[in-house]
């Protein structure tokens, strides 16, 4: 297994049409790398390119090309690469092999079989707070609807849950009445986000609300959480 530190990255450029004993070259190289225990390899297909023969290969709808450029990339230790390089050169045929020194920051880990992990960070019972945020549906934050951005931000900050409600009628800070028109595709109305979590977590999230909400109302109220049930999520453990 590959460890963090110095390693070599090998890139092989091939033409998709290239075959060896009737099998595409990339697949015989991939098989070879796989059975020689290389840590991992990726094959990517280019959209267009040209090689030594100076023939332009492109994915054109008119001339459906089967000779698109293919790139195989893998990272391994110097010793392991030295051991397989000879065979690799033979397999690559007319393709180009390039190698460069690289640093592995974080080696990939073998994914564990799926297991149930209860979302421990979401355990709240008893006293909690409800945060309601009133904004307009037209409000935007970095080219995204503000309410969507807020939900994404809350999710990223592990807020237990949030629901967005769309008002059918309402007004806010600058007294412009927002009215929902039936059968109207683009809706411009008031929305309310209602999030529940512990006081500390909601207060810790507040500076972000300060940044994101230019105009609107935030309301805090005390709530009692009577029941917080969740379905155990099937998550792929990474450690």
């Amino acid at each position, binding site marked *: 297994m590959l460890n963090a530190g110095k390693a070599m990255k090998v890139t092989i450029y091939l033409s998709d049409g290239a075959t060896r004993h009737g099998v595409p070259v990339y697949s015989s190289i991939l098989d070879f790398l796989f059975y020689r225990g290389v840590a991992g390899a990726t094959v990517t297909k280019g959209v267009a390119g040209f090689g030594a023969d100076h023939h332009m290969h492109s994915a054109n709808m008119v001339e459906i090309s089967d000779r698109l450029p293919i790139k195989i990339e893998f990272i391994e230790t110097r010793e392991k690469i030295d051991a397989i390089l000879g065979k690799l050169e033979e397999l690559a045929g007319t393709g180009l092999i390039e190698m460069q020194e690289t640093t592995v920051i974080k080696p990939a880990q073998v994914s564990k079989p799926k297991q149930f992990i209860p979302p421990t960070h979401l355990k709240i019972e008893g006293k909690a707070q409800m945060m309601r945020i009133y904004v307009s549906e037209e409000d935007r934050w970095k080219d995204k609807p503000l309410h969507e951005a807020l939900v994404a931000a809350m999710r990223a900050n592990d807020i237990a849950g949030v629901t967005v409600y769309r008002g059918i009628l309402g007004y806010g800070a600058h007294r412009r009445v927002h009215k929902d028109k039936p059968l109207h595709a683009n809706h411009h109305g008031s929305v*309310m986000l209602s999030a529940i979590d512990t006081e500390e977590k909601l207060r810790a999230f507040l500076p972000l609300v300060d940044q994101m909400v230019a105009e609107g109302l935030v*309301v*805090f109220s005390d709530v009692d959480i009577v029941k917080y049930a969740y379905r155990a999520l099937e998550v792929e453990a990474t450690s």
Partner: protein
Amino acid sequence: MKEQFPARMVRIHFGEDDRWHGKPLHEAILAKCMELGITEAIVFRGIEGYGSGSRIRHSSHWPLTKDAPIQLSIVDTEEQIARLIPCLDAMVEEGLVATSTVEVIRYSRSAGKSEE
């Protein structure tokens, strides 16, 4: 601009077909709120619900169909809400009014920009 103050929240539950002087009740209450200078008011249409009359109200997929449950949520200071309650007493014939104490943070753009 950011202001922070303790406030009251009022939630009123009734039906979409409820009327006041021929006008939909939620529109009438909203107009009253604006008249009183209430900070924030928003009307929500529920998907399903039941109230004091114990008849189940549905909201249809067809947006013009009425008789959906309505919830009005109003936020302002204790004094402002106290002014509103008598009006609600007169207007809401059948329904529920719930109040709670809340803490409010209000964000507003600078006064010059808000008038478009």
